[in-house]
Every structure is written in C-alpha cells, then in structure tokens.
C-alpha cells in the first residue's frame, strides 16, 4: 500500500473524527453538546459511513450498541453530562460487551466553559469496569482512536475515550495517514442470548467476564505504548495524563514523566518501578484525584491534590504554583503577577439581534412584577407573581439583564418537571416552563406527558426556532434534515403535544408581540396545563435583512423600553437610543417597533 502522510492543524475533535474514519468506523451517533459537537459534525461529512444526530445521548448510546452488535466499528460521542443521560445503556454496554468495536467519547469541561456543571467522567470507567483512554493533543487523539478500537474488540468491552475542552478545541499539528486501511468488516449479528439478553441469570454470567477483562487490561497497561516513560534527572517524577501533561512538560524541564494514555486500569508494577527511580512522586491532573487515589491505594506514597487545584482548568501558571507549594520548584522560577485594570464592564453573551426568543422573554419579564420583586442579583425572599423554570439552550441567556426571565436551569429537559414540582408543592405564583425545540425533543416530551397524566397546572412555552442553535445549528428531529444533509421527515411538535393529550395548545409567531403576549397570558390564566409553541426562525439561519429599523429622533424621548428587549442592535449612543443598522434584522423581526410606546421606530426614521 502507498503510504501518504500529510501534516495539518486539527482540533482534537477533528482529529478524533479523522482517526475514527481511518479506523473503519461505520456508524457514528451523538447529541450536540459543547465541547464534543464537532466530532459528529466532522464524521457526518464522510459519505461512506452512517452518522446521525440522535434524539438524545441515551438514544445515541442505544443506536451505537445495536450497531456494534452488528459487528461494525461504532463511535458514540457526547459531552460529560450527556453520559449522565446515557448512563443506563452505557452500563448495559459495559455488561454485554461488544461485537464490533465501540468507542464512547466523553468530553469533560473543566472550568465550565459551556456547561451546567463540572464533573470528572473518569469515574465512569471505574463504575462501568471498562478501560479509559485519554489523549493529550490532537496527534494522540488521532492515533489513540485506532488503539481504542483494537482494545474494544480484543477485550469485548466498550472503551471510554476521555477528552477535555482544551483537547477538544485546541488545534495542534497532526500527521495523518491518508493511506489508512478502511477495510469493510464482517457485518452480521450472531444470536447469543446469554451475551445480549440481560436477564438476571445472564447478567450474572457477564459480571465475572467484566472482572476478568479488567485483570487482563491491567496486564496490558504495564506494557502498552499508550503509556510513556520519559526519563529525567531522577529528582522529581511526574505522573500525569491528557492536557495536564502538556502543561507539566513545559514547566518541568528536567523531571521524569510517566505519561498515561490508558488511564484506567492503571499499571501497578510500572508505577512502582517509576516511583523507585525518583525521589519525589507528584501527580498532576485536573479535577478529582482520580490517578492519585488509585496510586495511593497501591501503597505508593504520592502527592498531588494537596497542592494542585481540585476544580477548574490547569495551565502552566497553576502547575508552577502547585510545584512551588509542594517545594519541588523554587519560588524564583515562578512567574510575576500580571497587571490588571479594575472595574471593567463584563461582556456576557446575549440573544442575537432578531432572535425569535427575545419577544417571548420580554413578555415573561413584564408579568408578575418580576422586575420590582427581584433585586439586582436576581434574588427575592418573596415570590413574584410568576416563576419561570428554564432549560438549556441559547434562551438560558434570558437570565441576564435586562430580560431576567429565568428562575431555574438544571439539566436538559428539567424545566417541565421542575414546574410540575413547584405547583404540586403549592406555590401561589403562576409557573411557566420554557424549553427549546431541540431540548423538548431531547427530554422534554417525557416531562410533558407527566404534566398531562398528573394534571399539572403549568404553562409550557416551547421556543421553536427550528434548530439546535446554541451548539452551532445542528439538525434535530423537528428540523427536516438529517446529520448528513438528507431530507428527513419532520417530527411535528404540535402533533406530539396534542398526541400526548394536551387540550390547550396555541401556536404563535415569535415576532408578533401581541399574539405572543395574549397566548402566554391565556396559558397562565387557564387553570390547567397549557402549551404555547412560539415559532420563529433562528436569526443566524435566517439571512433575510430588509428595511432595517431606525429611530426617529424627533419622536423618541429615550424612555428605554426598547433597551429592555436586550437586543444587541439597540444601544445608547451619547445618551440617545440608536439602532445599529448593520446589526438589525429589519422586517423579519420588528419587535422594537411594536413595543415602542411613542411609535418612534420605523423603517425610514419616521413614526412606525
């Protein structure tokens, strides 16, 4: 075979997709979630494999499990909290094992760049008794994927492939083997009820296998090239993995390193030997003391989290600081303190100009005297007249001023269940649950069915912009297009709602403020479960810009009502309200024109 290698700058996610493709992956599934989204986006470009946006991570894992049972190599990718959703089928996969290789990519988000929480998914490896591989840069992301598939098939196990935001989204140089073998594998399902039907009696037979494979994998860990020994001067020995290795390698010029690529199970003999070669053993890892605790349980003296932060991301500065505290580096080598300029205005992300969510949130923010009850920090001892349970998507940004129209956000789909809980607990306020279309498909439907069944007096507001906007406009069951660009049947949210038994359903145009207001008011006042679908195209997808709005300076008295929409196109310039022409959506939106009490906003600078 002719080997052709090229060098490219790739993100970790791009490298994983390329590595999976070259390893012969035939089925790839995912639900979008930062920082994992680009893995499936890149895989879906290859037409000789099947890639899908699944309804949620649980379904993605189940589709992946079925595909690997058919003997093909399969990749399932998700963000850290996605694995919580997929935990049930993941644990099942850990028990049944695989036929074709199954690699599950879990993208952790230390520092919470774009998530609802921070969690260390390395614990899932121990929980599921499955191996876990962690790359440190894009080259390893590419190379380790092939090793992960071999491991999965050899040991009859799913393999967890753990990345973090910094590996997923950093670009580094990758040498790609363009001549990689993508040979078709045998596609067949072999009937094997003791392996695939997890009746208690069968599952009991699988458990010893899981323990046996971990023992065998521990032996492999002692010799695998995924783990690397780098000799230094014998003073300090660093055990590390993932991007922490890159930071540590830059900081410690002369230390010895045991860099782990297979982070579960760990190799006890290798670590013993390494400990014997150095004077002081130090573990550098982000988040929990996962490596450290395991090594300490081997009876080896090691330091780590006593000095290294337990939360957030590391960087070279943090590693230097920890090393200084641990007295393995002199303070002189530590960097000087940076200059800072105090009291700078923040720049929180905003709903876009022309966002179809803005009108509904403006309406919600004006109900129940919320603006009077809530203090600047969004707190109050008493209830306002309206409690708004929120969900996960762009619309979570409506929490920020000036809208301040969200009281809770927990996890995907939680808005509806939380709203049910609040009314069943007996709050006196009205309760509205706000959820986006993709999130509704993901896990809002089961909550809605609960509300129907248990007769919950809540208003559910479904913001339908036809896409999964926050993560970069991925398609979903309601969008009419597949991950690979084919036409797909649209799952009609209104029919789903009606089919679930909701009697009060209204569908309104997101940019018709009067209709939105009257629909939300009637949904809140009805005394029973009501659903409002607020429909409007995402402003980033809708490219039409006609008749951009202007302020008629003769009529405007700068009352500031339009500023309360939170539209980034509307600002005060030298104390005067002004609409930035380049940013305004024009006719496709027009919300500010409808709200202006003095009719000072129009298309030609004259009264609207």
């Amino acid at each position: 075979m002719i080997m052709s290698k090229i060098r490219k700058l790739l993100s970790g996610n791009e490298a994983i997709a390329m590595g999976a493709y070259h390893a012969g992956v035939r089925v790839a599934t995912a639900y979008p979630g930062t920082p994992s989204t680009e893995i499936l986006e890149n895989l879906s470009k290859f037409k000789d494999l099947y890639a899908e946006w699944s309804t949620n991570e649980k379904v993605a894992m189940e589709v992946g499990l079925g595909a690997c049972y058919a003997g093909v190599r399969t990749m399932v990718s998700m963000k850290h909290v996605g694995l919580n959703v997929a935990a049930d089928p993941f644990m099942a996969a850990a028990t049944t094992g695989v036929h074709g290789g199954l690699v599950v990519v879990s993208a952790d988000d230390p520092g919470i760049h774009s998530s609802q929480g921070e969690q260390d998914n390395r614990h899932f490896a121990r929980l599921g008794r499955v191996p876990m591989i962690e790359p440190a840069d894009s080259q390893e992301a590419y190379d380790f994927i092939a090793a992960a598939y071999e491991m999965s098939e050899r040991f009859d196990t799913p393999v967890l492939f753990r990345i973090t935001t910094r590996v997923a989204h950093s670009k580094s140089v990758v040498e790609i083997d363009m001549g990689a073998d993508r040979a078709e594998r045998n596609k067949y399902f072999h009937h094997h009820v003791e392996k695939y039907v997890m009746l208690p009696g069968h599952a009991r037979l699988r458990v010893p296998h899981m323990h046996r494979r971990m023992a065998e994998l521990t032996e492999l860990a002692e010799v695998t090239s995924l783990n690397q020994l780098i000799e230094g001067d014998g003073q300090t020995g660093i055990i590390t993995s993932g991007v922490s290795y890159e930071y540590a390698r830059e900081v410690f010029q002369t230390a010895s390193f045991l860099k782990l690529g297979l982070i579960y199970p760990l190799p006890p003999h290798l670590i013993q030997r390494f400990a014997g070669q150095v004077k002081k053993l130090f573990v550098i890892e982000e988040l929990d003391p996962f490596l450290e605790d395991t090594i300490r349980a081997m009876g080896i003296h090691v330091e780590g989290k006593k000095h290294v932060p337990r939360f957030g991301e590391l960087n070279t500065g943090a590693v230097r600081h920890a090393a200084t505290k641990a007295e393995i580096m002199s303070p002189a080598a530590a960097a000087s303190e940076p200059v800072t300029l105090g009291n700078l205005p923040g720049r929180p992300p905003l709903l876009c100009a022309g966002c179809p969510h803005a009108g509904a949130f403006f309406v919600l923010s004006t109900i129940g005297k919320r603006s009077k009850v809530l203090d600047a920090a969004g707190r109050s001892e008493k209830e306002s007249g309206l409690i708004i349970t929120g969900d996960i998507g762009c619309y979570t940004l409506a929490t920020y001023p000036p809208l301040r129209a969200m009281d809770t956000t927990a996890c995907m789909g939680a808005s509806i269940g939380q709203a049910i809980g609040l009314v069943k607990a007996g709050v006196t306020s009205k309760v509205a649950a706000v959820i986006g279309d993709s999130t509704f498909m993901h896990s809002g439907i089961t909550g809605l069915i609960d509300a129907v069944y248990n007769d919950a007096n809540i208003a559910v507001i479904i913001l339908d912009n036809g896409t999964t906007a926050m993560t970069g406009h991925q398609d979903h069951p309601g969008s009419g297009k597949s991950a690979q660009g084919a036409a797909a049947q649209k799952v009609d949210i209104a029919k789903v709602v009606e089919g679930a038994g909701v009697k009060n359903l209204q569908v309104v145009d997101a940019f018709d403020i009067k209709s939105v207001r009257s629909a939300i008011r009637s949904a809140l006042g009805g005394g029973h479960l009501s659903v409002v679908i607020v429909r409007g195209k995402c402003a980033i997808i809708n490219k039409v810009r006609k008749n951009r709005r202007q302020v008629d300076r003769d009529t405007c008295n700068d009352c500031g009502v339009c500023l309360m929409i939170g539209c980034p196109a509307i600002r005060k310039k030298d104390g005067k309200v002004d609409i930035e022409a380049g940013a305004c959506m024009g006719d496709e939106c027009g919300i500010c024109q409808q709200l202006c009490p003095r009719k000072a906003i129009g298309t030609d600078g004259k009264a609207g």
Partner: protein
Amino acid sequence: MSNHQHKQDILMVGVGGQGIVLASDILGDAALDMGLDVKKTDTLGMAQRGGSVTSHLRIGQKVWSPLINAPEADILLAFEKLEAARWVGFLRSGGTAVINNLAIPPLSISLGTQVYPEDAAVLGSFRSVTEKVHLVNGTDRVAGLGDIRTLNIFMLGYLSRILPMEITDVQWEKSIARHLPAKILDLNKRAFKAGREAADGVNI
C-alpha cells in the same frame, strides 16, 4: 523561552463576530507551512453570542501547552479596546500590543449600569507593561476599503510586520486564500496590504 525569535505567544482578543478565530487560523496555517510547531486554542460555545472572544496562538520549534500563561504573551492583538483592557494582564513586560481603535460598548453601558473605560486608562495600563503600544485606526481604514469585516485581515497585515519569525508573502497569500472564498479575496488582500502600510507608518 528566552529567545523570542524562536517562540511567539500571540493572544488575539475581541468581540464575537469580528473574525478573530479565522485570523488565528490563517496565521496558524501559515506558521505550520513554514515548518514551525503551532498550537492554538479559542473560546467557543456560549461566547459566540456577542461575548468576548480570545484565541491563544503559540508558535515555536516545539510547543507544549496550548494556553498562553499570564503574563507571557509576546503580542496582544486586540480588535476592540475594552477587550484589550480585559486581557492586558497577559502581555509580558516589553511585549507588543496592537489595539484597534474601536469601542463596542456592551449592553450594560446602554442600560447605564456600567461605564466604558477611558482610552487613557486602557493605554496607561499597557504602558505600565511595555513601551510598544500601537493604537491603530483599523476599522476606519477598512471601512474606507469598503467592508469593515476585513478588519481581521487588516490586523494580520499589521501583525506580519511585528512577528520576528519569517513568514513569506507567498505563504501569507496562500494561507489567506485557503480560508476565504475567492470572491472576497481581492478585497481582503487590500486589507492585508493596508495593515502592513499602517504598521510601516504610511497611513497613520
């Protein structure tokens, strides 16, 4: 890390929509083609919605960490003044700051809850770190060329005069062409040239 000819840490900062990630992609590819090691990391996700954007770009013979440590950036390329101020702490003593003379006030300014910093305070904070502070009228200059969206390429043109490592003209052109559609290539080439001229003092 003492030899700045062989290692450059470049921090690009600005506001979502200014083309910062694209600019750092273009420079990253150009440096890679010149045979150098490159690592870059951008803020993505929620920050895309009009939030502040940063791109860390590290170029050298061998780069480990994808993140620039504060205060070790050799160059801070700021597309907006408030964002420049936010990241001043990353610039090393004696490093170079290139600041586009543009204010994009966040909504909190319009709502009257916060105040945009004065130029003197922003520039003063930089001057306490380095003498090499360039305030550039980039947005005005590219508006004159016909499209303010070419600001990112203008800033790259300016940067090309400051970078100590050699990236050839051919390489710059190749990398820009790789990342931009053909129909806007000429306009962007003019923006790149304008950036260079600004750095050379022709048009400031």
